[in-house]
């Protein structure tokens, strides 16, 4: 039996509110399955489980605000004997805080039926299930004696109704998000000695290749320049791998084999989130583009996964099409580098001894001087430039 606990979704996170369970006792889960949704400063985040097994017990209730490390559920090991014969889990680590006595947990209430409540016959189990699932008993066709609503009727009703539409406003508390950004950025500027480099890159070849390719494709398969820029940055890490990794206080800087590339997404209400494309180095341009589309859509809808917001090893921030020339970023701790792309713009550049109008972008690097030096950083930006001059390979 293993304990499934409230995860930490960032150094600044102290507690999270359980918004939804996506599993029930008895369900089989595999490592990496999304099992719950937790509301945090970064919006609603889908939480994956770290163990395979069978859900034995859901300990936390939907609506409860619980500190990081609090027990959420118990998961039985696959193939383990009866739950009762498994020794009890080790005591909780010391220092684990008691549940935060925040606002009263909001338990789901059944909407008031339109007819007198007394008029609806329903079994206690059906009532409880309906309340839990926010189903009005008046809407459920009862199959019990005298038309009474039974548990099975409620379950059938729930199964038949359309999937809940995604919340239009993704439970984002902008003040909370602002606080999270403030905490991370203050820590970054306090702890990380940044150095900055910038370089102008001719994008005309890449742009011509992109336009020619997109002309042959339907909109759902088109690429954006942003995907080419991210791919070039990810590939350039081959040459300067020390920019890809994490540096936690009190430990040695750790390079990462995998590139989990954070992509900064600005939210229209204000605020910013940088979920990671996992294993970005293994993806070709098309796959990277698909991953970015998916990530942006889910960031807007407030449906990111825990691994995406906790495992980044480097971040790319782009101003997109309607920004300014250059962006000098603040590293997202505990990462050690951030690549910034300004808005591509047609500029005069010297080509073959003459002035030519070319699409160009300014790329910048903000890097941790404890981990790398300017010369290596310069090599990295030059490599991004070189890669962007290659013919486009989707």
């Amino acid at each position, binding site marked *: 039996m293993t304990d499934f606990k409230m995860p930490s979704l960032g150094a600044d996170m102290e507690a999270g509110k359980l918004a939804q369970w996506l599993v029930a006792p008895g369900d089989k889960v595999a490592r990496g399955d999304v099992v719950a949704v937790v509301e945090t400063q970064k919006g609603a985040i889908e939480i994956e489980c770290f163990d395979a097994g069978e859900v034995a017990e859901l300990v936390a209730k939907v609506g409860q605000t619980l500190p990081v490390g609090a027990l959420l559920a118990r998961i039985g090991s696959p193939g383990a004997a009866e739950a009762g014969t498994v020794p009890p889990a080790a005591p909780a680590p010391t220092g684990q805080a008691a549940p935060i006595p925040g606002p009263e947990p909001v338990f789901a209430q059944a909407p008031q039926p339109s007819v007198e409540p007394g008029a609806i016959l329903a079994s206690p189990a059906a009532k409880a299930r309906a309340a839990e699932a926010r189903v009005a008993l008046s809407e459920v066709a009862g199959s019990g004696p005298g038309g009474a609503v039974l548990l099975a009727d409620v379950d059938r009703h729930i199964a038949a109704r359309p999937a809940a539409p995604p919340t239009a406003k*993704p439970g984002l508390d902008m003040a909370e998000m602002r606080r999270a950004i403030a905490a991370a950025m203050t820590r970054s500027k306090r702890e990380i000695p940044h150095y900055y480099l910038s370089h102008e890159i001719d994008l005309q070849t890449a742009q011509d290749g992109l336009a020619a390719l997109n*002309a042959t494709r*339907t909109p759902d398969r088109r690429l954006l320049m942003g995907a080419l820029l991210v791919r070039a940055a990810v590939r350039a890490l081959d040459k300067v791998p020390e920019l890809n990794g994490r540096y936690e206080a009190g430990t040695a800087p750790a390079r990462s084999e995998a590139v989990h590339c954070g992509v900064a997404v600005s939210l229209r209400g204000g605020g910013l989130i940088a979920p990671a494309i996992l294993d970005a180095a293994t993806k070709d341009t098309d796959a990277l583009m698909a991953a970015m*589309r998916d990530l*942006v859509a889910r960031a*807007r809808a407030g449906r990111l996964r825990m691994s995406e917001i906790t495992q980044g090893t480097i971040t790319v921030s782009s101003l997109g099409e309607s920004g300014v020339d250059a962006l000098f970023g603040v590293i997202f701790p505990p990462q050690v580098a951030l690549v910034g792309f300004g808005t591509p713009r047609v500029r005069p550049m010297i080509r073959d001894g003459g002035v030519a109008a070319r699409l160009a972008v300014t790329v910048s690097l903000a890097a941790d001087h404890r981990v790398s030096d300017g010369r290596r950083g310069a090599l990295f930006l030059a490599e991004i430039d070189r890669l962007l001059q290659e013919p486009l390979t989707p």
Partner: protein
Amino acid sequence: MTRNEIRAAFLADMTEVAPDLDPAAIGETDRFQDDLGLDSMDFLNLVSALHKRFGLPIPEADYSRLVTLAMALDYLEEALGP
């Protein structure tokens, strides 16, 4: 399709791509990128949704005709024919 039907379909796709926008608050002449804050990824997702719904190719060369709701409705009306 009437212009109103196209408008309703367009706004449905738009709010799917940008769930944080209120369709009632989108004015005829609001520019998607500059006024409503759609980025290039949102815009491409919108074009993809319109392509899927209407079966139109919508080449990149036509993007400049999809700047505001009024312009987009003109474009779609014309492309879909009478």
